[in-house]
Each structure stands twice: as C-alpha cells, then as structure tokens.
C-alpha cells in the first residue's frame, strides 16, 4: 500500500497553543482536523508537511451555537454529519445541511469537518495523483513542476474549488473567524478565497479557521444542487447554490454562487440582480439560468467533459430556482438528500 511519510503530530488543547505551534513551525506545518482529504494527499506527496497541528482536541472548535433569529455560529471542527443533521440548520439554512450531507460518503462525513470542507484543497485530475503518476506525466506547477497541464500556456494554476459548502456559505452571506498569534479577525466568506488553484485561500498559513458565522435567517430560502457521477463519494464537478428572499410576491434579494467551475466559488451577480423585483416564473428562471451560466468557465480537469459541466450549470440553476419557487422538485432525490 502507499504509506504515509513520517511526520510529527501535535495535539494542542487550546486555540492559543495551536496558533503558537503554527507560528513556530512556519511553512513546515499544516493544520489537520478530520484528515479525510489531507492524509490521502500526504500519501500521494501532494502535501509534504513535517509537522501536523491537530485540531481535534480543541473544544472551542466544536458545536453549533445561537439560533436562526440572530444568526448561528458553527465551530469549524463540527463534523459534516453534525451540520447535515442539525435541526436549526435544516430548518433555516437548508442548502447548508444539503451540501454538508452531500460531501463524500457517510464515513468521511463522520470524520470530516465543516472547516476542513471550507478550506479543502483545490482539485485537478493532473494533480490528485500519486507521485509516480505525476512524474510519468510531468509535474505541474501546483506541485513539483512549473507549468499547468490543463492550460499549458497559462501563467496560473486552474485547479478546481471542490468544496460543497463554500458556494452555499457564500450565497448565505456567511462570515468566517480566523485566529492566529497576531489575533483574531472575521471576514466575509468570499474574502477567504482567491481565483488561483495554488493560492486559493486568502488567509495567512498560520491563521486557523475557528468559526463559521451565519447571519439571521430572516426569511432567506436556499437550495444546493450538486453534479457528480455517483450518488456518493464524488467531489462536486458543479455545485449550484441559490439563496433568495421574497418580498411579497416578488423576489426581494437573491444570491447565486456556482461551485467547482473555477479555482474559487463563482458568484453570478448579474443573474441574481435580474431576479430582484420580479415574480419567480418559468420564463424568468430560464433567462436567469442563462445569465448565471455565463461566469462558469470549467476546464477539462475533472470528471465529465467541461462543455457538459457548462451546459449543466444552466440546467442546475434553473432547477434550483424552480425548487425555491415551488415549481418542481429539484433534481434527483440523491442530489437533495445524502
């Protein structure tokens, strides 16, 4: 079997100790919570940390606090299973419960955390391969190489944002709290991401994502649809998050964010703006879906062909909107529930 390389595992009990450990080990260290993505990546030598700072023993990172009326705070170490099964989240932030429940498989959701999914590494089928495979093909710029194998002329890496929860949190207007030896800051979730396959997170390496803060539910409705080959295991190759609030019979406010079509979640502001002030009918939905598909620019580096993923963006946005309008059930049952 492929073996994990040797590394030192630290298990701080407090956030301060964890931040201090990250600061003192610098670039040699990585954070680990559930480890469901990190350990396989280490086996394939995509990550080569010599120190892992484990977050599992830190109590402050666990649990869901508050309520939908004033907003809720989810500890980054809360497992995806717990998020998917949380009553308040299911009732008031249903797209988040759906997205958390669609990550990978039940076993991995029991280990994997919300924070881990928000920060999950970008993916590319030239990159998520063993060391020997990557050597055979020629290393890419994301690890050990100098060029992008998907777009050889490109100066940047096009690995794909593959988080199910990130586009949903963005559409819900969530914020994230980051903590380091330099202190604490809270930023909108969209400020956490950058459109670069390598430097896809805007946080400092030593900063620890501690909490995800959801605003008051305040009449917002939400939906998430995921495209993948199978009903389990697979990362998204397209994720559509839609949140909207009705103002009487017309749409008062709306956000549409597309996942897994770029190195970060892609908002579709023009499409969302076209909804506002309008009644949610089929004709509008078709027009908005066309607008929303515009920003999606998938490349040929995941499962399915990229023209198909582009084509499905329109279909999935339309279906998500239709489900929020009560016009039709969105997608297959497997896409709605874990």
């Amino acid at each position: 079997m492929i073996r994990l390389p040797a590394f030192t595992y630290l298990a701080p009990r407090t956030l301060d100790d964890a931040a201090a450990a990250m600061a003192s080990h610098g670039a040699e260290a990585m954070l680990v919570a559930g480890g469901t993505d990190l350990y396989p990546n280490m086996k394939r030598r995509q990550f080569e940390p010599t120190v892992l700072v484990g977050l599992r023993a830190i109590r402050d990172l666990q649990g869901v606090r508050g309520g939908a009326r004033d907003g809720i705070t989810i500890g980054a170490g809360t497992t995806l299973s717990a998020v998917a099964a949380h009553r308040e989240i299911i009732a008031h932030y249903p797209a988040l419960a759906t997205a958390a429940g669609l990550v990978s498989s039940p076993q991995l959701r029991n280990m994997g955390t919300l924070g881990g999914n928000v920060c999950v590494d970008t993916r590319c089928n030239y990159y998520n391969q063993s060391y020997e495979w990557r050597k055979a093909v020629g290393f890419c710029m994301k690890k050990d190489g100098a060029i992008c194998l998907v777009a050889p002329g490109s100066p940047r890496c096009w690995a794909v944002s593959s988080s199910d929860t990130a586009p949903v949190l963005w559409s819900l207007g969530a914020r994230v709290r980051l903590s380091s030896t330099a202190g604490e800051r809270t930023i909108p979730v969209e400020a956490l991401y950058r459109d670069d396959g390598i430097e896809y997170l805007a946080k400092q390496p030593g900063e620890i994502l501690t909490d995800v803060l959801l605003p008051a539910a305040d009449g917002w409705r939400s939906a998430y649809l995921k495209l993948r080959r199978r009903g389990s295991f697979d990362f998204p190759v397209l994720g559509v998050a839609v949140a909207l609030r009705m103002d009487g019979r017309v749409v008062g406010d709306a956000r549409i964010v597309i996942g897994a079509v770029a190195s970060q979640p892609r908002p579709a502001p023009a499409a969302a703006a076209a909804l506002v002030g309008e009644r949610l009918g089929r004709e509008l939905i078709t027009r908005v879906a066309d607008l929303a598909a515009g920003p999606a620019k998938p490349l040929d580096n995941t499962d399915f062909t990229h023209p198909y993923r582009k084509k499905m963006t329109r279909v999935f946005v339309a279906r998500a909107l239709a489900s929020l309008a009560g016009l039709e059930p969105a997608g297959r049952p497997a896409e709605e529930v874990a």
Partner: protein
Amino acid sequence: MSVESGGSSAGSARATDGGRFGRGAEPPSEGKHEFAVIGRPLPKIDAWAKVTGETRYADDFFLPRMAYGRLLRSPHAHARIRSIDATRARALPGVYAVITGADLPRVKFGILPVSQDEEALCTEKVRMVGDAVAAVAAVDEETADHACRLIDVEYEPLRALMSIEESLAHPEVRIHEYGDGPNVHKNVALQFGDVEAAFARADLVREDVFFYEGNTHLPMEQHAAVASAGPDGKLTLWSSTQTPHYVHRLLAKILEMPAAHIRVVATPVGGGFGGKLDPFAHEIAACRLSQLTGRPVKIACTREEVFYIHRGRHPVLMWIKTGFTKHGEITGCHLRTWLDGGAYGSYGVASTFYTGVINPVTYKIPVYKFEGARVFTNKPPCGPKRGHGTPQPRFALECQIDKAAEQLGLDPAEMRKRILAEPFTKTANHLTVTTIGLGECIDRVVEASGWRAKWGGWRSQSEGASAAPSDNRRRGVGIACSAYLTGAGTAVYWNSMPHSGVIVRADRSGGVAVLCGATDIGQGSDSILAYLPAEILGIDPKDVHVHPADTSLTPVDLGSYSSRVTLMCGMAAIQASQRLREVVARAVARKLEVDPGALAFRERKVGVPDDWEKAVDFAQAVELAEAMHGVLAFAGSYAPPKRAGKYKGGGVGPSPCYSYSACVVELSVDEETGEIELHDVWIGHDIGRALNPLLVEGQVEGSVYMGIGEALMEGQVFRNGVHKQPSLLEYKSPTTLETPEIHTFLVETDDPEGPFGAKEAGQGPLLPVIPAIANAVYHAVGVRCDEVPITPEMILKGLELRRRGKAARVGPERIPRFTFKEPVVVESAFGQPADAIAVRPFAQ
C-alpha cells in the same frame, strides 16, 4: 432483493439419471427438498471469518525476518531501456537487495504457450506505463519506496501507440516482433456455411458498428504475494491468485528451478474476476528477492499498480452483419471484431476467439462467419474479465436484434423466444449444447417486469415515452439474453490429464477433509467442496474441512476461471465422496448384516431407513471402514468431454454445458441532463440446479452490478499515454446508490453434465445487462447508444441529433482498413444432434 427458484423441465430434452449419485438409495427428506444440503440457502463456510475480518489475505501474512518489496515501474508508455543504475538505491540503509531483469534468467513467459512475450522485469524495452523494471527488498515499505526513487533508469522514448487505429496506422513502430502482422497479435477467421447465401435469403439484412470500451476488474483486494526461499533451496509462494497451478508451472520456467521444489499456496482471494489469472511481476520479484536475501519477502501492490497489472476487459470495435426473416429468424451472421490488446499477449488469443465463438450458442444461427484481430497497443494488457471476450459481441448482437425487431415490427421479447437455440444439438461452429432454460428465463422476466404493458409496442421516436409534461425524465424498458460456458473444455496448455482433482479423507472423529487445488475467490468454491461430500456422506457441511489451493498438498485444479470450478471440482468431489461412501457402506453393511445398497447416509448416521434405530454414527462407520480397508483417502478426477471442433481454433468455446440468462431493465433518462437512473433489473438465470440458491443469487446480483458499471460508467481511459484515473475515487464504478432493485429468477434445467445438474452462475448473468440497458435507453428517449459506457454526454448528443432531424445514434462511425486471414472454411454443424453426453474418461 428477491429471489425465486423453480424446477423446470423446459429445454430438458432428456431425462437425467436420478440415481447417479446415490440419490436413489436415500429416503426423501421432509419438505420440498430432495436433498439434505443441496439446494438449501446455507451460509458460506467462510462467512464468519469474512464478516469478522478473521480471513487472512496475502497482505495479512507476516513471517519472521520478513522484508518488504516494491517494484519500480516505467513512466513511459513505450521506450527503450538504455541503462539501469541501482547504486544509490543499494547504498540506502535498510535496503537488502535491488534486482533488475539481469538478476533473473533471460526467459520470456506468458500464460498461453503461444504468447511468451513477458518479462517480470523488463530488460530491453518497456511497453506501457507501469511495466516493472526493477525491484527492491528493504526493511520496510517506506525504505523500499524511497529506494525505488533512487534507481536511475535511462530511457529512450519511442512513439506510443494508444489505440487500435493508431497501432494499425503505424506498422513502422513495432511493439512486439512477433504476431500475425505489424502490431497484430492474432488474426483469425472462421466460416461455417455460406453467409452471403444466407443474407440473400433474408428479408432484412442489417450492418451495424459498435464499440465497447475496456474496463478493469476492480477487486477489493489488491494483489499481494509473500515468497519464502528456504535454506534447503525450496521456495514457497503465498499469493492472491486464481491459478496456483499455472503460477507453479510458470515459476519453474521463469526461475529455472525444478517445479518439485516450488510450492504455491493461493491465499483467500478478495475478488478475482479474472484479474489474478496470470503470473505477475510482483510474484516473481518476491521469489527472486527472497532467494537473494534469504528472507521472506512480501510485495503488496498499490491500487494504482492494480490498474496497470490489469488483464481486464478488452476494448473491442465490432462490425456485425445479420440476416433476418420477416418473422425474426436469423438466416446468418457475420461478425468482425478488433480487440485492443494492450502491451502483452496474456490470454489474448483466447479472448480473440471468445469474441466470436460463443455467439451461436444463444439463438439459432445456421450460418456463421467470424473474423477477429487482436492489436497490440502501449496500454496495460487486457485479458479475461468476467465473461471473457463475450460481453462485447453480446452487446453488439443484442442491440442489433433490438433494431431488427423494430424494423420488423416484432416484440423483442417474443422475437427472441422464437429463435432460441435447440437443446441437445450442435451450433454452426460445432459446439455441443445440452439443456437450455432460456425460454423460461424470458418468460419469468417478461412476466415479473410487466414487460408487455411497459414496452407497449414500438412507438415513433417523436412520440416519446410516458412522462408527465413537467417532468424531463422518460422511462423505458429493454430486454436482452445471453449464454455462457460452464468451464473451458481445454486447459491453457495441452495435456490429457484431469482438469480437476479432489481427495476426500475421512478421519475417526467423523470429520472429512477435502483437498482440492481450486481457489475460492469469493464465489464460494470452498463451500461447494463442503456441501457435495456432506450431501453424499450424510453429514453436516461443518464436519467437512476444506483444504484448498496448495500445490504441494492438493490435487491439481486448473484454476478459478471460465466458470469451471463448481462443475469440474464438483464432479471430482462427487466421485471421491462416492468412493469413500462405497467403502463405508460395505463396512456398515457387514456389521448390520444387510446389503450395502440398502443403506442410507443422513443425519450423521448410516443405516437402513426402515430400521433406523440400528443406524450407526458416521464416526463409528468410519472406524469400521478404516479397520476393514485401511486409511480412508479417496481421489476423484474430472476432465470435460472432448468435444473440440475438428478444425483449427475449435478448442476455444467447447464446454460441458452452457448457462443462459435473460434480463429486463427499467430505467429513466433525464432529457435535460442525460442522466440515467435504473429502477429495476429482472434477471432470469438457467443455473441447471442451484446447489446453494443464496450463493447463486449473490453471483447473479454481483454480475448485474458489474454489468451496470460497464454499461454506464467504467472505462480504462488514457491521456498522453497514461491511465487517466487509476484510483478508486476517479475510476467511476457504481455504488449501492446506483444499484437498482435486482429481481433474480433461478431456472433449473438439471443438466446431465453438471454436479447434481448444476451449471455456472458467476459470469453469464453479466452479459445481458449491458445491451438490456442500451435497449431500454432507446425505448426511453429514442437514442441508440452503440457504444458503452453510455454517458450523459452521449444521451444529450443523441437528443441533439434528433432535434436536428438526424438519426439519433451515438457510436463509432468507422471500422479500420484491415485484411483478415483467409477463413478456415468448415461446414456448419447447425442442428446436428449433440455428441454423447456425460462420458467421463476418469470415472470408474
């Protein structure tokens, strides 16, 4: 999951000998069962160990002082090896040995005598990414891994040929120097009767082109082996293999040492499906490294390596021309196949024949012509996977029949029933067919699925299927049938010895040991080897101790392939058990002063049914028999009937008997996304007799599941010479969520060739699933997918073609320019009566 089982005389044209196995002497048991063990849904004898994790697979073997090995594999699809320098690797602390091809005898090998083209560690050329070039033994896996990266290999890259078309278009690039032409491994042509005359007689002649993408076995257990060379010069190999006997023979050749000094033990195999049928580099390297280091050496392959080891389903391009009468009868069929063989021969010559020779077994095909070619490419070598070479042409023929049925306005289920092959006759290509339960299989799945209402006649494509106006999903049903062999009639090397042997030894405790070379790969052969002696000796299967697959202990069984084990080991076990039973019966008869023929064996006792109080315990009976006879060890042997057609190539295809399957699939297709959702699969399987219906049902369901994967998502896809997705995550294979309800119907025809009438179960039920899905997709949305896997993209492409008023067909457009051999022309044997049934050279 539901299963139904029913006795049937359908297709059973002659009565079977009910008393053959001593059944006549036994009083019928209570209830519906004629037998005490046979036909009962018992758990496998290894079920507890499997579910509790106690089963020791090859990778669970740890021996004192054991070293860990690793192979260095080629990063090039095609390259000349200029030099290999292992100096840095040898200097690494913890490394015990590094070997290259220079440390092995310069012998090429291969599983088939006609294709000796492999080296365990390549010396001159590498022919695919993943070819092994060096091997390391070290103190642990990490060190071995590290050492591999310190081996410097200088390559001269050569042009890689990655498809049938590319290999044929570049004869100046030669992957191998041997074969039937540049990059052509095998070129075969067989003709049985005048196909052109048959087409002239037809009311409808169709020509279609199909492509079936290659896919791999995906066993849960990755290949692993432990070798231990003793100070006495003897060698033992424990390996996850389906064919310990063939590995034993080939190791002797490869290592140039006496076979008598080699022992091969097959460990419990965690899934085979044909992927563990060849001798592999890791086995050979482990042996050599152990000889050099004096330590046991284990090499466990990674998942990625298993994708390169492969020997799975061949990608096959097919052209098929068939003549039909207006009633749907086939007047003749002409099939051409091009197989993408990958980098080595493996079983490829057999695979090539199998793409042609089994086709005439299902329906009446009075005249038949087959041309096949296997082409080398720089990809992992293909070989046998569940259904070996036959699912591809099955897909082609069953889809073509569906198209013909539409053109002729016939119900595709009715049409198939009308053209079933005749039991106890010969096919055009001289195969002898015994019982056929296919008609009943069709009846059962047609009735259970509600076929008539759901199919409802051919509808125009614009009409579409039943769907609510707001729903994008359209439902459809499809049907297909198949046949498969129950054991290959010839061994992979020519010999006239038994194909299977069993030793049954009774001990004074009343226990019985069964020794047999067969390998349980999950199909339950160990259990069958307990059930059959238990039935015949009237004891509990738990009283039987099965010792399988150890070349120094067990009689040879050729291996777990071609669905041969239950029939061949079963017949040998029956013969051995009968011989034991006769001796025990004589001893008990003497004590009870009765005739041996009056005795029954049941409930761990031997006695006269009418005077059962006097019956003696089986353990006591054994003591009486041992006192009379000496040690109670009896052998049984089996060789299949010699029925090879009297023409070159006639050795591939004959089998003691053939299983039959019929399948109806119901699915929905989403016209917006192209996604296919399976709802139900109804599958009828002519099993001859279900020795254990629970195990048969498991085999049928596993076949259906695997067929679904091949139909809808699995594919060995390459990009720039490299496998695109060698991982369990990205090589898409269905999960339980993609697996629909499977309704299994077992049809029993009591075949005279099989043990207690049994035929095969492990492979045949895969075959009809793939075309049934393709046919159901057409029924749902009017798109003909003449290529698998059928992806959502293909569906959308077909729908787009339809919208533009073109033929809604997605599939290959061309066939290669290629000259087949002059065919071997033989008269069709179609309709001739079968040769004598059940003549066994090793029976007493």
